[in-house]
């Protein structure tokens, strides 16, 4: 594979992470536990859609085959989506949504910070904006992990269950395969496995403040980067792609 194909592949993964997670967060709109939280979840979803748009547009430029952000976002088959599995996990109860956001944001904070010094200038520019946004996402999710963990007996149990359910999907964020290796080599990204220490520290400290214990670390699920997803993705796509599939090739 050429450097360009690797870069395209890498960008697609990153954009898919953001799109699929924002699609999930958008499902909360009008359904959050408070009005304030409705606005907060929509804020996070909007940041993620914005980030995905910048990355897809850049990916389309890199690919240079006449596709645009919407072609990439909407008109691919299921196995061609490359998001990490954690992004597609169902919203579940509010604790699950918070746990998912917390694990992801705790990774995105150091990830975008490092990306600010990428020698890919486009990604560095996207990172400068994203860094500020994800700092808020992490703060917001962490506050809820703490409140729910140290709230009532019920919220505590729900928070414990959510952290346990989602922890198994966190390993994928740190994976290094041939594509990531190529990106590290050319200075596009830092080795994600080197962010593990900081991620763990964030996660441990918030979970401790929530008066909870770390979930058991064991086997980590994988597959999203190769297009091997959970059964949830297909249903996300059937809504996401509905208009583009029903009315192909039209301008909206």
């Amino acid at each position, binding site marked *: 594979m050429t450097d360009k194909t690797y870069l395209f592949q890498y960008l697609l993964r990153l954009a898919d992470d953001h799109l699929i997670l924002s699609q999930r967060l958008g499902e909360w709109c009008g*359904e959050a*536990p408070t009005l304030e939280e409705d*606005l907060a979840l929509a804020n996070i979803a909007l940041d993620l859609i914005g980030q995905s748009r910048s990355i897809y547009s850049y990916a389309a430029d890199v690919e240079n085959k006449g596709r645009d952000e919407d072609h990439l976002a909407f008109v691919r088959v299921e196995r061609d989506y490359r998001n990490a599995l954690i992004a597609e996990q169902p919203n579940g109860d509010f604790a699950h949504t918070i746990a998912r956001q917390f694990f992801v944001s705790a990774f995105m904070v150091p990830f975008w910070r490092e990306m600010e010094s990428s020698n890919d200038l486009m990604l560095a520019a996207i990172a400068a904006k994203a860094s500020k946004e994800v700092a808020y996402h992490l703060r917001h999710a962490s506050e809820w992990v703490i409140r729910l963990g140290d709230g009532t007996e019920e919220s505590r149990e729900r928070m414990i269950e959510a952290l346990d359910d989602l922890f198994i999907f966190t390993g994928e964020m740190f994976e290094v395969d041939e594509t990531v290796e190529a990106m590290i080599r050319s200075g596009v990204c830092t080795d994600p496995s080197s962010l593990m220490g900081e991620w763990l520290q964030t996660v441990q400290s918030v979970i401790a403040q929530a008066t909870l214990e770390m979930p058991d670390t064991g086997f980590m699920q994988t597959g999203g980067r190769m297009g091997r997803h959970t059964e949830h993705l297909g249903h996300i796509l059937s809504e996401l792609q509905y208009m583009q599939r029903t*009315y192909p090739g*039209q301008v909206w």
Partner: protein
Amino acid sequence: MYSQGLIGADGKTHEDEAFLNAFQARIDAEQKIEPNDPMPQGYRKTLIRQISQHAHSEIIGMQPEGNWISRAPTLRRKAALLAKVQDEGGHGLYLYSAAETLGVSREEVTDQLLSGAAKYSSIFNYPALTWADIGAIGWLVDGAAIMNQIVLCRCSYGPYARAMIRICKEESFHQRQGYEIMIALCNGSDEQKELAQDALNRFWWPSLMMFGPPEGDSVHSSQSMIWKIKRFSNDDLRDKFINATVPQAEHLGLTIPDPDLKWNEQKQGYDHGDIDWNEFWRVVKGDGICNRDRLKKRRKVHRNGAWVREAALAFASKHAAQQTADAQIAAE
């Protein structure tokens, strides 16, 4: 006439003639009434009802459009729609706060919504069936809301008027965004134009009903007009809306679904066909196609979020207690 009214935290005030006259003099002088000012109980009650109904409409109004967030056709449209629905939630929040300045809590008025005692705008009991409905709702429903609300920016009650100024800016952005969706559809394929026409057909009459039934001539002597909460009759506002909207439909190349719609040279405005007020009252009374779903969903959301709100309260009180204890130790 002699009656007593509660005024904020100040306790009771005698609503004698002198009091009522002094209040009316302030209204007539276009002075804004502020939360701590003395006001007749009827004025307070009217505003509480109107503001909380308005807030509920914003909240219930999130449902028909929220229904399309996951299916929006492009990323740009998805982001714009999500931001719009988020704005409506924000409007609900400002309005609940404005109602709170009159002495009702958000919980109280929310309970009235959930029990079905309080009303919300009946337009939101119509379903958003296709993507074109998202365009039509922005164009017509936000458009009609602006006609109503632009006048409310001059409402005599300060907090409501100020909330309206902020909200109106966003509503007119929504209206333009909705119209822009319609333009895209009308510049598109035959299929897209059909979607646009169908959405207009379904939303036109319910949008006209948003202004409420004709009030007759009595309206100008009504209490809301005298108190300058309301400044135009329902029919006046409806006519303004029609006059503004018909040329927009023409520009789109769409047909307004009213065979009796005609320009009236003499009044320099449109005459329109009869509005089906039976349908209006049926929907207001609860038998629109979505009424039950809208309330059920709101109740479900409220129920599902209860444990989260309880947890947040428990956490806050635990930590407030902790802080007090820490402060005592530090003081000793």
